[in-house]
């Protein structure tokens, strides 16, 4: 139990590392001549990376024969939402400084912002319903169905990134390929095909349910 606890603390600290690195750079004046742009891109990158990390949990459990990895999935997912919040707040507060008119125009008119914002709303829904209480309230089956939104969220994240860059699409394409492989894996193991058995998704017996 103690060991389990310690490993969670370890993953938590790892999850905070990108933020610490960012603050370290900020303290040493290493955020380039355009710090707001840097912070926006940095937090966006880490949001997408953490979404990808959560999608790696299921394949890694199978491939490495480590079903216990499921323990960390919720935390990693919440870190994805945490960096998404920083990303969105950077845009809202620092970049646009609560210029609601401009922000609403962006969300409605700029396709990459529309897609990004949609992804953010999806992550928020997943974060809110990530507790054991919500699993009980929704029922395992419905909860699982809802949490497949992560597949849409990763697509939204990649498309948002791809449409936002001026010309060098290598990074978004890289994440796009990773996401495609991870989704193809789900398709191969039948995540999208078979109706799932309704079992409670609690951390004590996770092996039976989560894919």
């Amino acid at each position: 139990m103690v060991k389990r606890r310690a490993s969670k603390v370890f993953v938590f600290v790892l999850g905070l590392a990108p933020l610490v690195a960012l603050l370290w750079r900020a303290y040493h004046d290493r955020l380039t001549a355009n710090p707001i742009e840097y912070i926006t891109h940095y937090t966006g990158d880490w949001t997408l990376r953490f979404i990808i990390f959560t999608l790696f949990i299921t394949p890694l459990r199978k491939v490495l024969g480590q079903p216990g990895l499921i323990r960390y999935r919720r935390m990693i997912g919440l870190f994805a939402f945490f960096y998404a919040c920083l990303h969105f707040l950077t845009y809202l507060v620092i970049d646009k400084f609560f210029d609601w008119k401009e922000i609403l125009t962006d969300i409605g008119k700029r396709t990459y912002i529309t897609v990004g914002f949609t992804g953010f709303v999806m992550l928020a829904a997943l974060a809110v319903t990530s507790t054991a209480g919500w699993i009980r309230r929704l029922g395992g089956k419905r909860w699982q169905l809802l949490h497949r939104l992560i597949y849409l969220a990763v697509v939204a994240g990649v498309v948002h990134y791809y449409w936002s860059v001026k010309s060098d699409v290598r990074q978004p394409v890289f994440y796009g390929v990773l996401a495609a492989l991870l989704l193809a894996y789900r398709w191969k193991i039948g995540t999208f095909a078979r109706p799932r058995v309704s079992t409670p998704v609690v951390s004590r017996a996770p092996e039976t349910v989560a894919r």
Partner: protein
Amino acid sequence: MLIRKSPDVRYSEVTPKSLYLNRRKFLAGVPGAVLAGNELLSPSGRASAATTKLQTVQSALSTTGERINPKEYVTGYNNYYEFGTGKDEPQQLARNFKTYPWIVTVEGECAKPRKFTIDEILKLAPLEERVYRHRCVEAWSIVVPWIGYSLSTLLNQVEPNPKAKFVAFETLYDPKQMLSPLQAGIPLPYVEGLRLDEAMHPLALLTVGMYGETLPPQDGAPVRMVLPWKYGFKSIKSIVKIRLVGGQPASTWNLYAPNEYGFYSNVNPNRDHPRWSQKTERRLGEFGRRTTLMFNGYGDQVASLYKGMDLIRNY
């Protein structure tokens, strides 16, 4: 045309480089007490390619009333895709870029086509210091004290003939020193173009230096254009060829995405980029956003070039 009042002091007079560096050193030394080696890591501590001092005269075409950005903003934050698509990459990757000897070929529809060495270009006319606002299509801006003279001075040397209607520019493309088009993500060599009357406009600056010195490689050494009323990408860097031509020449970003980047690319807050707004901009070093001005605030001088034109359609 409105001739603006010339500035009282030039950049080189305001901040002698030695004092400036000492100040940086002093500032960098304070946190250095906490963490040794800090200066090595800070952008100001990085070595940059050698530049030499230039003698300049004042210019009536210099922009007044603007706070000039510190030099590091202009040397450490660049769009020069031949040397990397990250803003901080050109400073590193262009460090050993060979900018001497350098020859610029001026040819095409003119009476006296010829080649100019960089030494000849530096001596063709008195070098003026001109402070210009620089607005990037990515919605950030800076204020830079450029050094050079009007492009018309050079073009008049070759005597354009009546068939010359446009000017085509080309950047050096040397695969041994630069990234491949695939790595840069754009077709290379980088090309740009202007209408002849735009090119002959006194504000169109053939630029050989900034901040009292020759250009560092990442800023387009040894010779580049600066067109303050157009988005930054029109101001082509490291020029090797200038051609006077009859038809509208190709321009790199227009080739890349014609619906996003037009031939004119005048700064225009009323015509958004398809994917982002051009109404406001971030002046580097400032917290809030500024309203973007038509023609980047140079409308008094250049608006007459576009009289009767639909600038939404001719973006």
